[in-house]
C-alpha cells in the first residue's frame, strides 16, 4: 500500500544542536587482516571505555581508518590499550588529535530526506569552517571539529536549521 502525505518546511527542524568539548580523536589505521585482532582487543580489553562517536572508513590503500572520539578522561586508558597491542607486535598506525569538539543533532526523518547533508557540510565548508570528520546515519548528524570551532559551527547551523529556543 502506498500513502502520499504532503509536508513542507522552509528550514528543516531539529531536536536541538548539542556540543561536547574536551574530546580526543583517535585515528587508527589498520589492514583488513589485522582488523580481527584490533576488534578482539576492543571487545575484550576496553573495560568501561565509552566512545562519544565512532567512524570507520576504507582508505584507498585497502586499509581501514577507525576514528574513535573519546572524552579526554578515557584517552589515557585508550593509549595504554593501543600501546600494549603495539608492544605485542601489532602495527596499528595511531594518530591522536586532542582536544577536539563535537557538534551533533537529530531531526525528524533526516535519513529519508534529501538535502540534509548538503545543508550541514556544504554550509560549513562554504563558510570556511574546518571539519575533521562527519557522519550521517539514521536521523543523526555528527561533526568533529578542532578546538574552539564548535560554537561557530553551532551558530552557523542555527541559521540553516530550525532549532528549539534555548
Amino acid at each position, binding site marked *: 500500500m502506498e500513502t502520499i502525505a504532503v509536508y513542507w518546511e522552509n528550514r528543516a527542524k531539529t531536536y536541538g544542536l548539542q556540543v561536547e568539548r574536551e574530546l580526543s580523536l583517535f585515528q587508527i589505521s589498520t589492514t583488513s587482516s589485522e582488523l*580481527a585482532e584490533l576488534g*578482539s*582487543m576492543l571487545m575484550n580489553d576496553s573495560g568501561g571505555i565509552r566512545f562519544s562517536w*565512532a567512524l570507520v572508513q576504507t582508505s584507498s590503500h585497502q586499509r581501514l581508518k577507525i576514528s574513535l572520539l573519546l572524552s579526554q578522561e578515557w584517552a589515557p586508558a585508550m593509549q595504554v590499550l593501543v600501546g600494549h597491542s603495539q608492544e605485542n607486535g601489532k602495527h596499528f598506525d595511531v594518530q591522536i588529535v586532542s582536544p577536539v569538539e563535537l557538534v551533533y543533532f537529530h531531526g525528524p526523518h533526516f535519513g*529519508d530526506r534529501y538535502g540534509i547533508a*548538503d545543508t550541514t557540510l556544504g554550509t560549513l565548508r562554504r563558510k570556511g569552517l574546518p571539519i575533521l*570528520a562527519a557522519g*550521517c*546515519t539514521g536521523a543523526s548528524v555528527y561533526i568533529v571539529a578542532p578546538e574552539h570551532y564548535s560554537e561557530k559551527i553551532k551558530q552557523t547551523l542555527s541559521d540553516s536549521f530550525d532549532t528549539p529556543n534555548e
Partner: protein
Amino acid sequence: MGSKIRVDGIKFSQELMHITISSGPGKKDLNTRLLRSMAENRINCPILFYSAMDRCSQGAVCITLEDSHRLEQMLAMNPDLKENVQYLSPVGAISLFPHKFSLKLLGCLMHVFGKTGLPIYGMAASLSALTLTTDFHMLDGAIESLMPYISLPPNHAPFRPQLRIKAI
C-alpha cells in the same frame, strides 16, 4: 569468549549504492560539490562518512538503487565529479541497536568481519545504533557470523524494513 553482547534489534537497509570520493593534498575537496548536486537533484543520502585530515579528505555516501539512475544523469553533467568517484553496488547497511557507547559492540563487529573476511565499507555511530555497510548479498551471512557473539530478544523486530519513506 566472554558472555554475549545484548543487542535489542538489528535493521537491514534496502539495496544501496556506495559512492566514494577522495581528494589528495593540493586537490579541491569535491565532497561538498557532490552533496550540493545531489540535493539539487533531490537525491537522498541516508548514509554519509567523511573525514579530512592532513590535507586529504575522504567521503562516501550511500544512495538507494532507485536513485542511482538520477545520480548517473547528474554525474554525466559533471565530468570532473564523475572522474573522481568510485561506485560499489549493491551494498547493504546493518544497524545494531543499542551500542550504549561501548567499544565492545564496535570491537565485536570489527572482530567478526575481520575474521570472516566480510568487507566493511564504512561504519558510523548514531544516537543509539552502529550502522555498518557491507555487500548487500552478505547481510544474512554477516548476522549468522555475529550470532555466536550477540544475543537478541526472542521478540525482536524483523531485520528487513517493512515500511519505506521517500521524500519526493
